[in-house]
């Protein structure tokens, strides 16, 4: 009876992308409704499905969910990607929040003025390499495991993988100083994401995954 989750967003990555990754990691198929006209968006609002008037919107398990972080938290808990206890969870939350801050900076970069763009991107990459990536490299180094938390695949790994791919799109050598990250946080290591690198245009199941290979920026 459980219908598939349904995602409402613009045709692009933006804030919905992390949600797509989590669902993909859980092996959960989902539907997407792309908001391509103003009327569609206004209808959602009028129907009262957008709590604070914003997307992403995900309808699943009989609930109408907005607020990216709330959705992600729910998915992580539901599919057991949230650690085995509260202590693992809070560690994961720390890693994920840091990653998300970094990703937000990258996502917002295209909205800067052209003169600022190059400079902004450069400074973001700099921050990534001096503040964030070293922290994750250290974590992997300290415990020697293949996953960030609890020696088990979790939301923290998914989020970091997404962030790394995002960064590599802008700067292919971003992981050059981080050997552990390069080896461990490689999307090829995770069979559940194996479809990402293989563009299979005809397959309905994978069309949502092909969004990951859209060019930069949240809207086309």
């Amino acid at each position, binding site marked *: 009876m459980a219908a598939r989750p349904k995602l409402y967003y613009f045709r692009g990555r933006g804030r919905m992308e992390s949600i797509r990754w989590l669902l993909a990691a859980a092996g959960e198929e989902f539907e997407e409704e792309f908001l391509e006209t103003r009327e569609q968006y206004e209808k959602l609002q009028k129907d009262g499905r957008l*709590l*604070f*008037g*914003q997307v992403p919107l995900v309808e699943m*398990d009989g*609930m109408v*969910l*907005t*607020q*990216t*972080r*709330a*959705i992600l*938290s*729910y998915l992580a*808990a*539901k599919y057991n990607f949230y650690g085995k206890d*509260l*202590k693992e*969870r*809070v*560690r994961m*939350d*720390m890693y*994920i*929040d*840091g990653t998300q801050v970094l990703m937000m900076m990258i996502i917002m970069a295209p909205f800067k003025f052209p003169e600022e763009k190059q400079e902004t991107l450069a400074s973001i990459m700099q921050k990534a390499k001096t*503040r*964030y990536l070293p*922290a994750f490299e250290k974590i992997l180094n300290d415990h020697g495991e293949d996953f960030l938390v609890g020696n088990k695949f979790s939301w923290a790994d998914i989020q970091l993988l997404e962030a790394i791919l995002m960064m590599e799109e802008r700067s292919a050598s971003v992981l050059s100083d981080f050997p552990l990250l390069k080896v461990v946080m490689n999307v090829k290591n995770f069979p559940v994401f194996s479809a990402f690198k293989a563009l299979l245009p005809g397959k309905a199941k994978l069309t949502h995954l092909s969004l990951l290979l859209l060019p930069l920026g949240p809207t086309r």
Partner: protein
Amino acid sequence: MEGKPRLHYFNGRGRMECIRWLLAAAGVEVRCGFIQIIFKLIQGGTLMYGQHLPMVETHGMNLVETRAILRYIPAKYDLYGGNLKEQAWIHMYVEGLNDLSNMIMFLPLSLPEEEMNLAYILEKATTRFFPVCEKVSNQLLPYFLVCNWLSWADTQQPKIILMTEECKPSVLLGFPLLQKFKARSKSIETVKNTFKLERGMFLKNMTSTVAEY
């Protein structure tokens, strides 16, 4: 061995305020370590992403990232509703209100167009956020927003209301249910005790004005 949680932050509200409210509601006493200690911590390598505030030392861990801390406390002290769905709803509600809270929080740090910003924030508060809050407060339960006991939503909402009222005292005029809610939340046992004692919690962001409760 389990001492009180220790909060490291500036002597002001800022991002730590949500955390203080939550701990207050949970009835947890805290110790506050203000900024001087930060430099020692950076040197000692305990701060994960470099210089990172707020930071909360509790249960043998050093927690950074406001949101991570904010998710830990309700889970730990049972302020997160009774099941995953309630949790998701609380989370959704709180994150949405957080947007308003951030706008107000950064107001003193914005440029001289402050008057304009204030008007914009108040407009958003009364047209986008408070109507939702009013509707939510109307829905189910006599005392609490979700399930039958105190939750994170019940601490976030009064905090937002108070913050907005500081910007404009009459902002709750069109929202009778919110006024009722505010009166109710003042009488929550744990909240009442904490905020009465610690006047220091009501310093405005970075100045020394003490707000009235």
